[in-house]
């Protein structure tokens, strides 16, 4: 299952052969799916839209770094170090939702009728485009924001735990999930039963929402910068180790007392980005050297090198809605936009 990524004789992968490569003069800071396009954000404040039957186009959105991005399927929401929280349509129209001035917009999240952002210790939630946001105070800086799939809950992570805001008939009520340490990126499991956060320490922490039982997923050699839910089990797939670490969240207790499945080995380096292959029990793992490996979440199966090393860590992987195309981006601004399957174009 090991793949020698140090090979000198670089043979272009199938994906590289049939795709287009772009070199942008700014780090790729993220990517999201919007209709059948993939939208990438950059460290120079620009966005680029990669569509199926068109040349990619650029939208100048922020003055500085785009720190965070989310898509609700209709719009892209971005937050920048210029203090702006923007809503951008699929044809690149920009709508400024809020300007925080000299304060950065660190996190954004969106779902069909709601969108949210955070700046400093406050989270701001907009309901149905109401012009005035609900403001949620935290005792420390917000590290991550996430809605559950139904849009009934908003998770706000910070130092010492995660606060879950639940929509009621008249107002949003909060419930605190406590765990010592600083919490960043946060997510709900697809069935809404679990809450998971990536920590400043080299671990991810989970809670079963019903009874707040703790699930400590530790033992990583580096910080977890990326996670994704994959397959029907589902697995929580995480970066931060030399393989994609996949924790099973099926059954009564999820990963409690169980071992993760480890696939997509990257050799002597750690994964920096992971993304699921929609509707499949498979995952893409991007590594520190820019290479990307595809593997089924099954330790007995072979994995495939689909992207050679670029010399810079993978910071974005997205699959278009129709699963026809993949986008891979890195911290030096290298982008591969390619048909995922042979024969498709």
């Amino acid at each position: 299952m090991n793949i020698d990524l140090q090979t000198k004789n670089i043979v272009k992968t199938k994906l590289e052969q049939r795709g287009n490569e772009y070199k942008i003069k700014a780090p790729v800071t993220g990517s999201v799916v919007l209709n059948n396009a993939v939208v990438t954000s950059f460290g120079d404040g620009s966005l680029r839209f990669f569509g199926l039957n068109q040349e990619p186009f650029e939208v100048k959105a922020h003055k500085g770094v785009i720190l965070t991005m989310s898509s609700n399927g209709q719009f892209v929401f971005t937050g920048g170090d210029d203090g702006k929280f923007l809503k951008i349509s699929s044809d690149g129209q920009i709508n400024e939702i809020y300007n925080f001035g000299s304060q950065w917009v660190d996190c954004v999240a969106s779902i069909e009728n709601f969108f949210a952002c955070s700046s400093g210790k406050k989270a701001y939630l907009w309901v149905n485009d109401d012009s005035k946001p609900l403001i949620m105070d935290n005792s420390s800086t917000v590290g991550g924001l996430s809605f559950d799939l139904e849009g009934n809950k908003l998770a706000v992570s910070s130092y010492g735990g995660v606060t879950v805001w639940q929509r009621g008939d008249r107002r949003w009520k909060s419930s605190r999930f406590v765990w010592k340490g600083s919490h960043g990126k946060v997510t709900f499991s697809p069935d809404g039963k679990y809450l998971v956060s990536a920590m400043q320490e080299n671990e991810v922490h989970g809670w079963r929402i019903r009874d707040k039982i703790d699930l400590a997923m530790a033992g990583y050699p580096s910080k977890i910068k990326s996670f994704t839910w994959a397959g029907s089990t589902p697995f929580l797939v995480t970066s931060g180790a030399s393989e994609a670490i996949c924790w099973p969240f099926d059954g009564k207790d999820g990963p409690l007392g169980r071992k993760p499945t480890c696939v997509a080995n990257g050799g002597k380096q750690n994964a920096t980005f992971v993304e699921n292959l929609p509707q499949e029990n498979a995952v893409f793992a991007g590594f520190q050297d820019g290479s990307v490996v595809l593997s089924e979440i099954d330790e007995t199966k072979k994995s495939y090198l689909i992207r050679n090393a670029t010399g810079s860590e993978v910071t974005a992987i997205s699959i278009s809605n129709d699963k026809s195309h993949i986008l891979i981006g890195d911290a030096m601004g290298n982008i591969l936009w390619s048909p995922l399957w042979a024969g498709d174009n």
Partner: protein
Amino acid sequence: MQTVEQVPVTVLTGFLGAGKTTLLNRILTEHHGRKYAVIVNEFGEQGIDNDLVVDADEEVFEMNNGCICCTVRGDLIRILGGLMKRADQLDAIIVETTGLADPAPVAQTFFVDQDVADRTKLDAIVTVADAVHLNSQLGEHHEAEEQIAFADVVLLNKVDLVDEKGLENVKKRIKKINPYAKIIKTTRCAAPLDEILGLNAFSLKRVLEVEPDFLESDHDHDHDDDVTSVSFVSETPLNMDKFQTWFGNLLQTHGQDILRSKGILNFAEKDERYVFQGVHMLMDASPMGPWPKNAERNSRVVFIGRNLENMGLQEGFEGCKS
């Protein structure tokens, strides 16, 4: 893998009114043409003349890693991470702390967070001190002692407002706390900038170059300072195993009280010099090439901290001799 150049980070500490902002503005105006990011605290002095000023709120996080005194600046991890995503390369980053800040979490952030350590490096801690008020501040606020203890450079400002004797006294007091710090006497922070920036003071290589400056009159007890320093020299080579055991235990049990430690070690049967430096319980150590031909081979260690007299340092160090 491509090696990314680490952006140097200078930390400016000092009490309110000592002249941090004056120094900051001097750096920014005299070094025009260079691209700086300045991270300031929300309670700081105003009026910084730079187009890239980031507000920070000095959030100190305890790391949940079994190390009891390991704290980091969470906001710094977040902001440095954001700055590293910029399209343009920064020449340097300057972090201004509030007057009452303990510099340890800032320094520890560079030891503990791998992303921060990969992309940036702590260049030096520069403490701006008010020559008129430092004496009383040292007695009243433990933060003032910590800021002196952690300093690589002490900019002793407003020296025009004290007489010769007063100046000698305050210098003595600084040296007693921190024999490693370089003291630059200034008025209006008018110090040569190359003595403040680009020092690489936290690189292990620099430990070799710096000689602690213990004043002869080390034994006056005019002030009962909490933070003091001690140093040991040994001409007899040390035993590596014994040293590692002693030093490891020492940091485990007294790391909270040892603010900074530095040393060059001469191990028996090793041709290379070993160098270490630490902040509380965290430590960097590495062999640093062979001993120079004409240099004396000896071991030198320095500790800056509180309650040093109760740690059995002398006996412990002696016990490491081979």
